[in-house]
């Protein structure tokens, strides 16, 4: 990483004497690495799209309510089921992608790449946030490709919605990626990851408003309804759903922001060599 010669006015305010430019270079480096990794794994890109598209084309076709889904906000009129689940599937992309990037952290740790990253002189939180943003950027690109394909499947939110959904996607992506990061700090080996995925991803996905309106769940089981209400993924999906139709769901926005701070704080703590969980696992943390 090259350090530009010029002195930065902000340098004195930043720890360890780095300027903004250096921080920028570090962030760019991490993002480029994540981007390159993504581009080099085309099957990962395709598989990340196949999953939501299968849900859209096959599952939604099976569940298609030809006579329309009842009106619930933010929809102002009747919509078809494929229109209803599209924001949930965008959330699913973010969820899987967030978990995948945390999976890559476990892999990095096992392979020793993580050490290269973590011995960097930049503050640990900055490295983690950079890694997080890199993961989010990649998943947001995936969501947009998915939305573009869905457009041809007659899922056509207002044009402005495509713009307004961006901050919602970034925020929801940050929440889910930081959850993944927090989880990854607790996992000793790559093999353990699958189990955790099943215990986290699927319950989060199914016990949410991604696939069915919550009033339907409330009709069948009040307990399940409360579980769905306690699920942060529900709020991520609703935030995306409202933003895609040009509206803000303030409650979801607050919940998503709150959980992002919580998960990210947890992950930063967990990866802090002085206090974190990582120190306890150092002997299993890499063979490279």
């Amino acid at each position, binding site marked *: 990483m090259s350090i530009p010669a010029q002195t930065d006015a902000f340098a004195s305010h930043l720890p360890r004497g780095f300027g903004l430019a250096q921080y920028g270079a570090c962030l760019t480096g991490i993002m480029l690495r994540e981007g390159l990794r993504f581009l080099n794994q085309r099957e990962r890109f395709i598989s990340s799209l196949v999953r939501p598209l299968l849900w859209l084309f096959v599952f939604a076709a099976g569940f298609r309510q*030809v006579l329309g889904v009842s009106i619930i906000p933010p929809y102002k*009129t*009747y919509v078809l089921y494929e229109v209803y689940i599209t924001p949930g599937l965008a959330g699913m992309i973010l969820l899987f992608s967030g978990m995948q990037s945390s999976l890559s952290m476990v892999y990095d740790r096992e392979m020793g790449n993580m050490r290269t990253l973590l011995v960097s002189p930049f503050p640990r939180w900055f490295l983690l*946030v950079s890694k997080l943003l890199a993961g989010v950027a990649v998943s947001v690109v995936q969501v947009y490709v998915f939305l573009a394909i869905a457009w041809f499947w007659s899922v056509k939110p207002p044009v402005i919605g495509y*713009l307004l959904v961006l901050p919602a996607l970034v925020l929801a992506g940050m929440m889910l990626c930081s959850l993944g990061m927090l989880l990854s700090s607790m996992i000793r080996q790559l093999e353990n990851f699958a189990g955790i995925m099943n215990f986290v991803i699927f319950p989060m996905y199914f016990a949410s408003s991604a696939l069915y309106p919550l009033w339907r769940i409330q009709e069948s089981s009040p307990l399940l309804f409360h579980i769905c209400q306690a699920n942060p993924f529900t709020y991520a999906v609703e935030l995306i759903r409202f933003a895609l139709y040009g509206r803000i769901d303030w409650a979801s926005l607050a919940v998503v922001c709150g959980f992002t701070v919580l998960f990210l704080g947890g992950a930063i703590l967990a990866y802090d060599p002085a206090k974190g969980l990582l120190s306890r696992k150092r002997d299993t943390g890499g063979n490279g």
Partner: protein
Amino acid sequence: MQKRPTSVAIMLATVFCGGLLGTRPAEAFMAYVSNEKDNTVTVVDTASGTVVKTLPVGQRPRGITISHDGKFIYLCASDDDTIEVIDTETLQIVDTLPSGPDPELFVLSPDGKTLYVANEDDNLVTVIDIESRDVLAEIPVGVEPEGMGISPDGKTMVNTSETTNMAHFIDTDSHEITHNVLVDSRPRFAEFKPDGSEVWVSAEIGGTVSVIDNASREVKHKITFEIAGLRSEAIQPVGVRITADGKKAYVALGPANRVAVVDTATYKVEKYVLVGQRVWQLAFTPDQKTIISTNGVSNDITFIDVASDEPVQSVTVGAMPWGVVVSPK
């Protein structure tokens, strides 16, 4: 966390743009919806999509239309055997017209002076002079008359009879039937093309719209409908409206919960627009930018954007909305 301030800024921008989106640019008109089951008329502001007022009216209100100057609403109170006249300023019932028994649907002559009323139970079409409130004629037609259409020149009136399955062409001067055209089962509605060249007659059970040539008085084309995933019996065409430029027709398809958009040149269905349950009648706003459907079972009306043919919004009205008419505010 460097990106946080940026995200906050974007969210604020979202708030701002979201606020902008909330306002619809459309001009404000008033839509009047007759609610068959709870004996009311709901007044809806078409710009904001909000219910302005709900008026109690006579029993079983169905057919609804408006005087050309927008001052009076005419409403078929079917079970009260009368036509009520509502002042659009005061929203009070100011008069009634002698309609004959069980008026269901009517049409106003282009000069705004005469009402032609279908009396469902008596197999009659009653002709009423609005100003003098006199019944000018009672024309015997087929069994269960319903659909009423009038040519743009006001010379020909078409009535459809649900059980006889015919469109009766009536000369408005002599009040005599000149032609009977057989159409498909249970014809519900007749609509002239704005140039007067064709009459479109929907058949509820037959599931078709017959296009009748007004010169030869013969069916020149039959439009059929097909919606993936729906039984053909669920497709029951009722209300028909044709744009003022004569290029597009909208057909309400009853329990199919859809309005079909038909190209009037090719008679091809271009699109099916999803609306509420059991869509019945349709009305354009005067600027022709929006068409409104009444959805009887879901108790709401749906606004469809005419340029994009996308459903924009549904608004809850009274019980079993039947007919709708729009006037300038």
